[in-house]
């Protein structure tokens, strides 16, 4: 009891040193567990979602970029393909194509232009409001709605992509009609809208005042200025139209859900030609490869963690040793006052026990917090 009292008093007196030792100790204990938790969570989340996505159609190139962009809405995105690629899947009658345009963002969330099939395909249900129905409407993922404190009736504005390009992408106000139930997947961090709305954001479709007007005498004149609408309303929705061939409109990727195994095999066969600018990938295969690589890196990370842990323990030991060296006069006084032979050992043990206990409690707290928020953390990590 006396040893604990003195140890606690000393640790409190040297609180800054004690705090550093506790933090370092806690990190040494917590980091391997947190890493394992996040790795396991990432593996589960990646694998689960990849396995729930049969095939992804996209531009030839990095399969990983294609899958990460189409399945997890990450920053890594493949080159866009055209709507003609989606039409080709429709025309084949071998599977259901679900278009994805993930080129734009709003308030740090990815705008996913897609079709209503996506919601059925992912099993997404509305927590409040209604599904998007017309151009300019959007449905929020649960986390986005919570983070931005938005709900049905509110609006979000797409982020301008290039401020100084007169022919570029301009912000479009999206009317929020519903909020999705949380799923613990990247869908929670997305803003869903119809793919046509994404094309309006891209500037392919737009609405504006009449180009020509006729006065009372029937004289037809051209407008001096044409004002493009930044908001789609019941009054101006009819003026929205698209330019160019529909088959050339851009898509980031197309999720393809084959009607059966045979259809899937046939479809995959059609995109094997390396000269074909479009490829069809199986996300579960791509992610399996990624997870395998991650775990190989994790093994290296574990080794590094062990080395750093040993170095940190050495530093802690040195710090304690130096602290005890500084306390030599106190120990001499204690000896003169009749301290027992093992008093110093008891004091040192008590101090280490207190530091270790605090570090363990802190480490347990860190691990608990990470475990409790594992899904969100994994989703956040995967978003990069």
């Amino acid at each position: 009891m006396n040893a604990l009292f003195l140890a606690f008093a000393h640790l409190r007196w040297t609180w800054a040193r004690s705090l550093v030792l506790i933090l370092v100790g806690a990190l040494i204990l917590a980091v391997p567990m947190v890493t394992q938790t996040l790795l396991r969570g990432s593996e589960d989340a990646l694998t689960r979602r990849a396995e729930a996505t049969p095939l992804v159609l996209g531009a030839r190139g990095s399969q990983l970029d294609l899958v990460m962009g189409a399945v997890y809405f990450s920053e890594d995105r493949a080159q866009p393909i055209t709507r003609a690629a989606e039409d080709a899947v429709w025309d084949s009658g071998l599977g259901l194509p679900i278009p994805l345009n993930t080129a734009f963002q709003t308030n740090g969330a990815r705008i996913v232009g897609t079709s209503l099939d996506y919601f059925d395909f992912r099993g997404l249900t509305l927590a409040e409001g209604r599904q998007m129905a017309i151009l300019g409407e959007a449905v929020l993922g649960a986390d986005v709605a919570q983070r931005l404190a938005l709900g049905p009736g509110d609006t979000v504005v797409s982020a301008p992509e290039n401020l100084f390009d007169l022919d570029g992408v301009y912000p479009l106000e999206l009317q929020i009609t519903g909020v999705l139930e949380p799923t613990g997947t990247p869908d929670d961090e997305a803003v869903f809208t119809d793919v046509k709305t994404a094309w309006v954001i891209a500037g392919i479709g737009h609405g504006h005042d009449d180009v020509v007007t006729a006065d009372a005498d029937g004289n037809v004149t051209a407008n001096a200025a044409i004002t493009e609408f930044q908001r789609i309303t019941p009054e101006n929705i009819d003026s929205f139209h698209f330019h160019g061939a529909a088959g050339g409109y851009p898509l980031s990727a197309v999720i393809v859900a084959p009607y059966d195994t045979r259809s899937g095999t046939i479809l995959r066969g059609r995109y094997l030609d390396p000269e074909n600018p479009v490829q069809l990938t199986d996300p579960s295969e791509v992610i399996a490869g990624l997870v395998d690589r991650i775990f190989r890196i994790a093994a290296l990370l574990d080794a590094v963690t062990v080395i750093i842990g040993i170095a940190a323990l050495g530093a802690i030991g040195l710090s304690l040793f130096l602290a005890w060296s500084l306390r030599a006069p106190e120990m001499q006084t204690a000896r003169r006052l009749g301290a027992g032979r093992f008093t110093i050992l008891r004091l040192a043990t008590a101090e280490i026990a207190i530091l270790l206990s605090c570090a363990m409690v802190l480490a347990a707290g860190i691990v608990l917090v990470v475990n409790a928020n594992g899904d969100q953390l994994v989703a956040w990590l995967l978003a990069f």
Partner: protein
Amino acid sequence: MIHARDLTFAYPRAGFALNVSALDVAKGERVGIIGPSGTGKTTLLNLVAGLAQPDTGALKVADHDLTALDDGGRRRFRAAQIGFIFQTFALVDYLNAFENILYPYRVGLGLTLDRDVRNRAQALAEACGIAHRLKSHPNALSGGEQQRVAICRALITQPGLILADEATGNLDPETKEVILDVLFARAAEQGATVLAVTHDHDLLPRFDRVIDFATLRQPAEQTS
């Protein structure tokens, strides 16, 4: 209180040897020890406190034969019978004044800290004039206040013998007098014997007896 005969003690590596032919100090006596540096005054205090074992001779302190006690026995003897006061005060920096007074009960073998001890510490602090500084840490106390805390710490176990090693060496003349007043008054209250090493000749008249350390090597003690 102290009876020593033909004590010898040597630090072979340092080439130092202590030789005390006879030393007798009565209970309640206040004895000052003077002598040049390096003659073994502190070593004598260490022998009397049981911190070191004489090589030869007889040494009895407070009816304990120190030459017959083992290490644990000497530690218990020291915790119960000896109060130490040092020139550098030797207070524990991370404890406040009150906890410094109680420090022997935190580390001393065989001592139990209870409510009576705490009350005694409070009373000692009041008697030494530092009751208002009990929550302060040593770095916030003046030299005189620190030495008062050290005196309280030396007296808290109600020892039979107080050993003071240059206890006023770091204090100004005025504070020296006050500290010695406090030490002697509290020691007298408890009936404790005081054996103090000092270089301060101005303080010698305050002692019942002064021993010139050089004379201890002689068959008889020289008294003032």
